[in-house]
């Protein structure tokens, strides 16, 4: 292909902007591989087209050139991607095709359907408890939860009544008053919400006293 760089030349016609024009074109014999004027090109082409065989040849040639250009472009692009490693990055690695798993005790992905319970050892009662139930178990075990406090209170009042000694009782009484306050507060009739003290027992004790 004889594409050449643009050179502005006052002798050229308007169409020529993509072709260099050598002023000494008259010296060149026509039909040589040197630069030609636009008109020469056009006239040559027109002459060519008139012949149907040549026209077919021209059409096929042009088509093939363009298809080859496109194919080579794609090839070079792929090659560059491969060289820079982007091809593997773009396409990724082939994953194992996971066929359907049909074993017993397994779902179709091959994961076992048995319950996976992690067991924890409670530090208080030293029992093996399921991890899911560990926190609630601790609540009741340590006597920190809501209903566990009532259970703890019951136990304490029972134990305080049964063992009503001065040393043990004093402490137990204090505890029981605290617990009584607490339990009183937790009754639906008297709620700490009305007294607006965010559940603190500071003034309650004084009031009751």
């Amino acid at each position, binding site marked *: *292909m*004889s594409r050449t760089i643009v050179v502005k030349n006052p002798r050229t016609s308007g169409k020529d902007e993509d072709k260099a024009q050598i002023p000494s074109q008259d010296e060149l014999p026509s*039909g040589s591989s040197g630069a030609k004027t636009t008109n020469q090109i056009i006239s040559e082409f027109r002459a060519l087209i008139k012949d149907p065989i040549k026209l077919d040849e021209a059409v096929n*040639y*042009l*088509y093939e*050139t*363009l298809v080859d250009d496109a*194919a080579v472009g794609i090839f070079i692009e792929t*090659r560059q991607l491969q060289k820079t490693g982007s091809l593997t990055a773009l396409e990724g690695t082939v994953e194992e095709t996971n066929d359907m798993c049909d074993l017993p005790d397994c779902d179709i992905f091959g994961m076992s359907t048995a319950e996976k319970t992690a067991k924890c050892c409670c530090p208080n009662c030293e029992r093996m408890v399921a991890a899911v139930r560990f926190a609630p178990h601790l609540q009741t075990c340590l006597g920190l939860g809501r209903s566990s406090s009532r259970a703890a209170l019951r136990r304490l009042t029972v134990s305080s009544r049964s063992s009503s000694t001065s040393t043990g009782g004093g402490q137990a009484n204090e505890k029981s008053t605290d617990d009584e306050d607490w339990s009183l507060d937790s009754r639906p009739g008297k709620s700490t919400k009305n007294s607006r003290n965010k559940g603190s027992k500071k003034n309650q004790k004084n009031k009751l006293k």
Partner: protein
Amino acid sequence: MTVSNTVDQYTVLTGDRSKIKDLLCNRLTECGWRDEVRLLCRNILMEKAVAGAVTSNSNLTLEQLITEVTPKARTLVPDAVKKELLMKIRTILTENETEGTDNHDDDEDDEDENGTEDN
């Protein structure tokens, strides 16, 4: 002057070459040819990479590979696309020839316009 040179020069001059090339690229992308050729290139490159690693013949030039790829790529073009493009190229080349005769030009221009609208 050879046919090829003349045609190339003329089509570049009139800007027809880029027009035809754009049309071709669009059609080929639409029909999936581009993806097929990409796959083909990838396969060839993989084969060469494997073969190169085994036989230590890793200095295959681009040109050699291209001469392998191009005939296969040509066969991959669907017939419909090929025919359409040959027709279009023929029309574009001949419409410039008959610039003198208005009727013929008008008919061909109309055909072209209709063709592009349908597509």
